[in-house]
């Protein structure tokens, strides 16, 4: 890891943070269609994991996907345009927050169905294995998703076929407004063991720790050693979705929130870097400013883009045979 590598990790986390803050503001202003789930507080997971992937590697994402996508290299302009329902968005306005994909970057898709990405990632790994490619697929899923049966099936299938898939559980301790531990037996990482799959727990607010765990799993997968399960412990600073307060009321202890904010993955990584002399606080501020500008530019691009033509709603369902 060079200094530049470290700053690159920080920059990507800062990009996600800035993107989500902008989305939050837009939601509050009432200019965002639909509903959104923000990744603020969890940036180290997506960035740490994607930092060891090549462009040819693939990910599947979730309803809380903006961070994964940006970490994998998605274009904030096209994302923002999609969130605003514009013609220039990644999906021409058809997908929205929960359905952004960029196949050219190996982003097989956010997903509105909790657990929906688990089978898809398994199939992606199957293709790579059969076609003899050394690509890997990282499957992001939540602690809530860990109770979907497809996890069991995907682990089994990946194990018997030795698929190059990394199952990355972002355990932010909540399933919507439910404490996950109240509806979940045992530790999620342990669910790999019965299938003979290595399962580890890692500090999800430590970008280097996530990176290391991911690197090990990716290396194993590329070498034909099969799947891994990583459980990254983290926390969402925001609600399950923006605007939830009206319905949910407070459901998390304030001390818990404060504790996790004190472990903010960006501030923490910056402070460590500063301590180790990798960069100065001013340099970090510059990075944040640069990324903030990038997001503002993305917003301006999106805002200036036209809405799709109504008739375009009928297009894109089927591909034409050649």
């Amino acid at each position, binding site marked *: 890891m060079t200094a530049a590598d470290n700053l690159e990790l920080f920059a990507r986390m800062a990009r996600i943070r800035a993107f989500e803050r902008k989305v939050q503001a837009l939601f509050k202003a009432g200019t965002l*269609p*639909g*509903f959104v789930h923000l990744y603020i507080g969890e940036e180290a997971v997506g960035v740490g994991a994607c930092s060891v992937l090549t462009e040819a590697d693939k990910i599947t994402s979730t309803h809380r996907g903006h961070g994964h996508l940006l970490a994998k290299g998605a274009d904030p302009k096209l994302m923002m345009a*999609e969130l605003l*329902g*514009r013609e220039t968005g990644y*999906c021409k*306005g*058809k*997908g*929205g*927050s*929960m*359905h952004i994909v960029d196949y050219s970057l190996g982003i097989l898709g956010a*997903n*509105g*169905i*909790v*657990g*929906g990405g688990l089978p898809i990632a398994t199939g992606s790994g199957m293709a790579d294995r059969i076609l003899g490619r050394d690509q890997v697929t990282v499957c992001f899923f939540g602690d*809530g*998703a860990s*109770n*979907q*049966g497809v996890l069991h099936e995907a682990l089994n299938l990946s194990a018997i076929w030795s698929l190059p898939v990394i199952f990355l559980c972002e355990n932010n301790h909540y*399933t*919507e*407004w*439910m404490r996950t531990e*109240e*509806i*979940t037996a045992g530790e999620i990482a342990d669910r790999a063991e019965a299938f003979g799959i290595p399962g580890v727990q890692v500090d999800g607010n430590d970008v280097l720790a996530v990176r290391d765990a991911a690197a090990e799993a990716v290396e194993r997968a590329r070498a034909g050693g099969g799947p891994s399960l990583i459980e990254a412990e983290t926390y969402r600073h925001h609600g399950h979705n923006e605007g939830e307060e009206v*319905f*949910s*009321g407070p*459901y998390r202890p304030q001390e818990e929130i404060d504790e996790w904010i004190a472990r903010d993955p960006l501030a923490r990584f910056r402070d460590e870097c500063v301590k180790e002399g990798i960069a100065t606080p001013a340099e970090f501020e510059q990075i944040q400013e640069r990324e903030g500008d990038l997001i503002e530019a993305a917003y301006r691009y999106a805002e200036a883009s036209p*809405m*799709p033509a*109504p*008739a*375009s*709603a*009928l297009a894109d*369902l089927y591909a034409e045979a050649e």
Partner: protein
Amino acid sequence: MTETLAKDTYMTTAIAGALRAAMAADESVVVLGEDVELSTIGCTKGLVEEFGADRVRNSPISEATVVGACVGAAASGLRPVMDLMFSSFFYVAMDQVANQAARLRYMSGGQVDLPLVYFAGTGPSGSAAAQHSENPHPILMHLAGIKVVFPSSPGDAAGLLIASVEDPNPVVFLLDLMLAGAKGPVPTDLEPLPLGKAEVKRSGEDVTVVAIASAAGTALEVAAELEEDGVSVEVIDPRTLSPFDWDAVTDSVARTGRLVVVDPARRTCGAAAEIIARVAERNWADLKSRPRRVTWEDVPIPFSPVLEEAVTVRKDSVRDAVLAGVEEKGAG
């Protein structure tokens, strides 16, 4: 008849009230689902405080097993009401709905009653996109073995929910999310409204409009507007789609001779197709013009507001269909 609880009760409040009444009336009624304690839609709010954690339980995201557990529980003396939150999630649990809940009584030769209710918000709710905007009623109607309730007003919702919980069969109770913020009168003294009874929401002479769930309101607006143009529109709200009150539709078309079906669902093999097919079978000699349907386009629900509007039921399409039916020369 009972006096109204309030002239202005929200749909969600009406459903919550009915659920509370059903739980109070029968100890074997339990509520389960993801976040039923705090309640994302609001229909189960406050129940845990009143009835305790044994009867109101948050469940993990395991739709297939929770849906199936309701079958086992109903066969064992409970009356479970499960909240699936969004009806799109039925697909995750479809085996337990289609192969188990809808089949076990029949396959057993009628040995067992399965009194259970699957509740879900449904349909577009404003850019929720393809995986949170399905209306599954045509699929459920096709399955057979599951009753399907899909009301258009708070008063109907309350009475039909009471009846759904009391019914000895699996019932899917759908809350059209377009109506979550709708208000209307609800009787204080809740009584069950029979499943399988349509309501004529407005009487008319020239054309019968059968309109499902939120489409009923659209149809009523169109009917009011067209009255000024001298067109008399009868609006029928089926309220329950399985069992379906075919006689109500037949009787109306026998008088008006014209039919427009407004169905908030994709067109192909939808409820509108079925209603038209039945009317063709039953009212052939009555029909003065071809039956018409206003439905969603045959695509998933897109995200962008302009696209969502383009593929769903619009008032102008309903109006156009009614007018086209009235203006068309008799034929066939």
